[in-house]
């Protein structure tokens, strides 16, 4: 497929150089070329990629890359750390001022300004306990004001609009007056989307900027933006002196390389990221996760957090103990499979865990289908059978097969898998006793811990 992860690319390079113990200038060149392509596929700007590769080269060659550790790990780590460092400090939140804090949202059409206005208001109200008003400055796009009104109501914020006949500069001024009168802590200005080369509309923003002096001017950047994102950011920044970015639609599968490009070229911090369509789905920005994402290395932290939410920890503990004691039943296996399903598809999990991205799309699909088959079969068994699958005879299997529309071979496969799991658990227990983890068990073992 088009997007190999960097670790895939590297493992290919290292297959070629097996036997060579150390990094050579030439090996380095191969790797750097792969890094280049990976970054470009993530939509990191071309110029930034070029400069970045030079930085990494310098760093890597200056260090003791030639010794000890696995050289691929070394380079990946240097690249990763470098990106993380460039992406900046964790969670640069809003700088609130005494009295009313005014925040203006700007950006191209369709980048998610209105949705983000609602999400910010929700955060301020429900997480920071700040009285928030949102003002509708998009007088151009049909339906924009109605959209904002609904979004703002969902967030529980105050809404300010003067319809679509008034000049946005005047609306901004009136909104600020009103927000002060009503003792608001925050005023969010939702402006119309515009091209950075539209002089008339950019002038309008400059005027608003001049009249209401927002404390924050945030640019919305779509995670799927391509190479031109830096030009857009530069132009908005030149005209309005931005204070930061919000990256929208990180719940998509775009790599979001624009975050790195813009940060690299403008130094502007990424303050929030949008991760869904619901009003609560706005998150702080984590540079380490973003670095993983851009490199296609999997986002272990996110996975762990998601896993935590999805799995009832007490139940998991019970399961784990049962497993270790060899009392693991088919019911337990099904429950575990369902928990994993709750976290996301198998493909998703595989992507999130850096050590195990070896599944092809077909394999992933196959794994998910297999899960469904398992569920159907186990559900067609009697509770006793689920706990004591050793009693299953041919006639039982025929009945189960009929019940769930599967074949005896499918049932045998489930049973085989079950035995394998059980055996693995036993092995784990022995390892646990000896204080070591079996190789390759780090990933999924974590779920049942």
């Amino acid at each position: 497929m088009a997007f190999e992860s960097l670790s895939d690319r590297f493992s290919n390079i290292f297959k070629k150089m097996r036997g060579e113990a150390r990094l050579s200038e030439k090996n380095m060149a191969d790797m750097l070329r792969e890094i280049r392509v990976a970054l470009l596929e993530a939509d990191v700007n071309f110029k930034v990629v070029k400069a970045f590769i030079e930085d990494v080269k310098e760093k890597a060659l200056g260090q003791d890359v030639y010794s000890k550790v696995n050289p691929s790990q070394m380079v990946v780590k240097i690249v990763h750390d470098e990106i993380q460092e460039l992406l900046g400090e964790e969670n640069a939140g809003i700088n609130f001022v005494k009295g009313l804090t005014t925040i203006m949202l700007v950006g191209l059409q369709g980048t998610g300004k209105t949705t983000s206005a609602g999400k910010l208001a929700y955060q301020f109200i429900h997480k920071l306990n700040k009285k928030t008003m949102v003002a509708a400055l998009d007088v151009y796009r049909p339906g924009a004001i109605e959209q904002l009104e609904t979004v703002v109501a969902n967030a529980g914020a105050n809404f300010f609009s003067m319809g679509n006949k008034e000049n946005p500069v005047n609306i901004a001024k009136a909104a600020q007056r009103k927000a002060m009168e009503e003792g608001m802590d925050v005023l969010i200005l939702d402006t119309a989307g515009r091209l950075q080369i539209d002089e008339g509309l950019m002038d309008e923003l400059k005027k608003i900027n001049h009249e209401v002096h927002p404390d924050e001017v945030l640019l919305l950047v779509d995670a799927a933006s391509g190479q031109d994102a830096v030009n857009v950011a530069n132009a908005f920044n030149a005209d309005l002196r931005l204070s930061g970015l919000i990256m929208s639609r990180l719940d998509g599968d775009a790599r979001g390389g624009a975050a790195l490009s813009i940060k690299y070229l403008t130094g502007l911090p990424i303050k929030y990221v949008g991760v869904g369509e619901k009003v609560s789905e706005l998150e702080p920005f984590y540079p380490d996760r973003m670095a993983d994402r851009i490199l296609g290395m999997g986002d272990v932290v996110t996975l762990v957090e998601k896993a935590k939410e999805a799995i009832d920890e007490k139940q998991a503990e019970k399961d784990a103990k049962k497993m270790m004691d060899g009392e693991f039943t088919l019911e337990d296996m099904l429950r575990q499979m369902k928990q994993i399903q709750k976290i996301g598809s198998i493909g998703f999990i595989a992507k999130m865990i850096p050590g195990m991205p070896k599944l092809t799309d077909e394999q992933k699909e196959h794994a998910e289908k297999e899960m469904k088959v398992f569920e159907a079969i186990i559900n067609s068994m009697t509770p006793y059978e689920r706990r004591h699958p050793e009693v299953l005879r041919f006639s039982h299997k025929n009945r189960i097969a009929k019940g769930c529309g599967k074949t005896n071979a499918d049932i045998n496969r489930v049973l085989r898998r079950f035995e394998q799991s059980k055996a693995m658990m036993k092995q784990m227990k022995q390892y646990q006793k000896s204080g070591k983890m079996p190789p390759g068990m780090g990933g999924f073992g974590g779920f049942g811990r």
Partner: protein
Amino acid sequence: MGLFSFLKNKFSKKEEAKSEELSSYEKGLEKSRKNFASRLDALSKRYAKADGEYFEELETILIESDVGVGLSIRLIEQLMEEADNDGVTDPKTINEKLVDAMFVDYATKGDSIENEIRFAKVGPTVLLVCGVNGVGKTTSIAKLAYRYKNQGKKVALVAGDTFRAGAVEQLGVWADRLSIPLIKGKENGDPASVAFDGAKFAVENKIDLLIVDTAGRLQNKTNLMQELAKISRVLSKEIPEAPHETFLIIDATTGQNGVLQAKAFKEVTPVTGIVITKMDGTSKGGIILSIRDELGVPVRFIGLGEKMEDLREFDLDKYLYGLLLGEVS
């Protein structure tokens, strides 16, 4: 060049296009191509002879237009080989060869389809419009409705975006301005049932073109993609051939993710064409070339501005020449 001129004739619009229309196309693309064209021009002036560095710079230009890393590298490698074989070193000739190569790649990677909507022989023609969030689906629908109303077709719209706040109002404003019927359902209702109502309305009222709006959805959200598949299926219950056309709207600012978008939407609906929007900005929209290269989906229309008239038929020749050479052939 026999093949090339053949393809070119096949894909280029008739040249008798009014000069007014031509210039507006140019104007819309102006910003997109300005940077690009002047760079290419400056490049060929700077180099007396095309060497490795020259080809590298050409590759840069492609990548910076979001053409896609894989396709860019492949095109340049082919170009180098061809130039080497033919002993060509003149930068201008090489630029021409690049345009030709891109042209041929596009033309041979899928069927040639006329840009205009292909109307059903009898009964209503249904156009389903889909895409990720914020790409300009609703605005494009308004422009398409305007276009076909002006061609004397009876057009109706279906407000299939029951999810986003303000979406129905937005489409409603356009329906009012164009004085065409709008079929809508309950807020947060099932979009498939609105689509079904729309199809019924179209049959009963002898509508020529029914355009179905849908909510923006990210292509990795399985349940939302299934919902779209259902809308597509339901339409055919009332009108067997429907949707006759399915347009995927792609924002010109989209990077490499555009290919994944097209792939995922193509899997759940029979995408028959792409409308690329916001081409009046500085983005070059090069991802459409990768989409064509990998999936064979053709571009049908191109959005060049906010006015109703600013939706144009896609013309590959103009697009490439405008983009790469800054001139309309």
